[in-house]
């Protein structure tokens, strides 16, 4: 068997393993475990696509919350029935085409992604005129603008009341299916010639331009693809939580994603996946620190929000001791494992 064959078989085996684990939890797991796994899947989608812009293009983009919000609202408004919409929009009725449109969940996710990508396209012209800190501020601003717009446009988003009673369409198959799909597509992209062009822009933009790479075109490409998958992730998130309101899509969401990709390793898809898994699992495991603790001699009162303090401490520790995150620029690869195994075999054969 050639190397490529072996890797294909290993990939299929890994996927089978993943989906049998999911099947097991779907059948026998508690709702709590299923919820954590769903969160993991969605955060993998979000982190991997966010990392495409921040890690591979080296652009500090701080507005994914806008894309997630747009995706979430678009897909929710499409899956709700006209009757549900009427019940939700009590202050001002929903504006016309949206009030009658309805689509199946799968289509609504795609629409959410497309809407987010469209928005990304509109803001890309001012965003990519600047670089570095300025770009961070511009994207941060757009993220905030979208949140404020969600709050203010009563006849589209129902304002601060939000949308309630969404059908919980998101299950393990949806959240992890999309995560795996995103992963495959993004990995293929970053390992392609287009991905190399993006990394070249990250490493040295003037040199990349001198080698014929058009920076705007490639940054835009990454930005739109990232926005599309963030939008899809937003749709999944909405149909998992079943209630969305503008407060869900504050800068805090962006901050969480930033923690995930920085801790995982900027510019490593493996790192983004690991970061997302640690975040979704750690977020729950650390709930302990928020409940009252009895240390024997004294009782610590539970402080809500203590988890975030801990997260910040972890982020600081990572930045001090592992400046490039858990993975750095490294990636998981079967080649590495197979090489190791072959070397060991060769050593054993030696007398």
């Amino acid at each position, binding site marked *: 068997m050639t190397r490529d064959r072996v890797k294909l078989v290993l990939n299929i085996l890994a996927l089978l393993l993943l989906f049998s684990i999911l099947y097991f939890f779907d059948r026998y797991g508690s709702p709590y475990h299923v919820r954590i796994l769903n969160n993991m899947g969605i955060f993998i989608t979000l982190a991997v696509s966010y990392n495409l812009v921040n890690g591979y293009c080296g652009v500090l983009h701080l507005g994914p919350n806008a894309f997630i919000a747009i995706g979430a609202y678009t897909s929710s408004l499409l899956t709700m029935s006209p009757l549900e919409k009427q019940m939700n929009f009590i202050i001002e009725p929903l504006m016309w085409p949206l009030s009658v449109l309805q689509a199946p969940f799968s289509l609504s996710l795609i629409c959410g992604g497309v809407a987010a990508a469209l928005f990304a396209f509109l803001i890309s012209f001012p965003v990519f005129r600047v670089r570095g800190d300025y770009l961070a501020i511009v994207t941060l601003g757009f993220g905030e603008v979208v949140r404020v717009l969600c709050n203010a446009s009563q006849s589209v988003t129902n304002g601060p009341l939000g949308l309630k009673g969404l059908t919980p369409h998101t299950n393990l198959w949806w959240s992890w299916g999309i995560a795996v799909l995103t992963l495959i597509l993004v990995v*293929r992209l970053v390992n*392609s010639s287009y991905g190399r*062009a993006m990394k070249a822009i990250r*490493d040295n933009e003037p040199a990349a331009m001198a*080698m014929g790479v058009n920076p705007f075109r490639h940054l835009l490409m990454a930005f739109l693809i990232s926005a599309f998958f963030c939008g899809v992730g937003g749709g999944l998130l909405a149909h998992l939580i079943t209630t969305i309101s503008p407060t869900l899509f504050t800068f805090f969401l962006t901050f969480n994603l930033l923690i995930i990709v920085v801790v995982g390793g900027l510019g490593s898809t493996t790192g983004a996946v690991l970061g997302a898994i640690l975040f979704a699992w750690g977020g729950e495991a650390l709930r302990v620190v928020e409940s009252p603790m009895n240390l024997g001699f004294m009782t610590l009162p539970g402080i809500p929000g203590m988890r975030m303090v801990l997260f910040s401490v972890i982020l600081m520790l990572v930045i001090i001791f592992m400046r490039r995150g858990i993975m750095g620029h490294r990636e998981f690869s079967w080649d590495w494992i197979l090489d190791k195994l072959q070397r060991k075999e060769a050593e054993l054969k030696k007398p």
Partner: protein
Amino acid sequence: MPAPFLSPERNMPMFLKIEKLVMQFGGLTAVDSFSLELQPGELVGLIGPNGAGKTTVFNMVTGTYKPSAGKIHWLDQDITGLPVHQITAKGLARTFQNVRLFAEMTVLENVMVSMHITLQASFWKAMLGLPHYRKEERRIRDEALEYLRELGLAHLADEKASSLAYGQQRRLEIARALATKPRLLLLDEPAAGMNPLETKDLAQLVREIRDKYGLTVLLIEHDMKFVMGLCERIKVLDHGITIAEGTPSEIQSNPHVIKAYLGEPKHA
């Protein structure tokens, strides 16, 4: 059939023609009225003391700076002020004075980036891993390796670019520039920081690649032995002004050049 109203010289293909380029930064005129014509296959040197405006000329020709005045014609097209990547696509490639490699990428990937403009398959074909894209990827990889072999870097293909020795990094810059398939190669101080032996090899290499790829070479260099031995024609800049132009022997005996480099002779 040529149109009758065209004068005979219009029928000559114009290669590179730079007309009275001016570059002003605020009140400072970095380059003043710089003109240069290159014929295909020439090897021309651009020299001058530090701050003479040599790199500024390169930056204007390759599109990094937009000239304050003047025109750059390339193969009968006006390319003045076009974006850098478009100028590269038209067949002008450069190396940088301070090495600018893609440090986090491998040596091979550095060269493969330059081949990106030759890619036909669109990004969604790459994302889906379609056969058309894979074929293109193989072609790019093979061709990039060919350039590395040419520059004697093939054995380092999988090393990180930042781990190379200085001389090798300079060679990689040339390999990367060649991979954009240029007709004009602009080398900005290719011999800087090299020892005499490396410099000698480099001169040999420049001649070889010019002949092999049918290039025209314009280079900036401070190493006079290198320039005089290699270039057929030399242009001397001082404070943005062209002070001399000619063959190496003419330049060496030109009083203006001697004055610019060594200062006025002292009178007793």
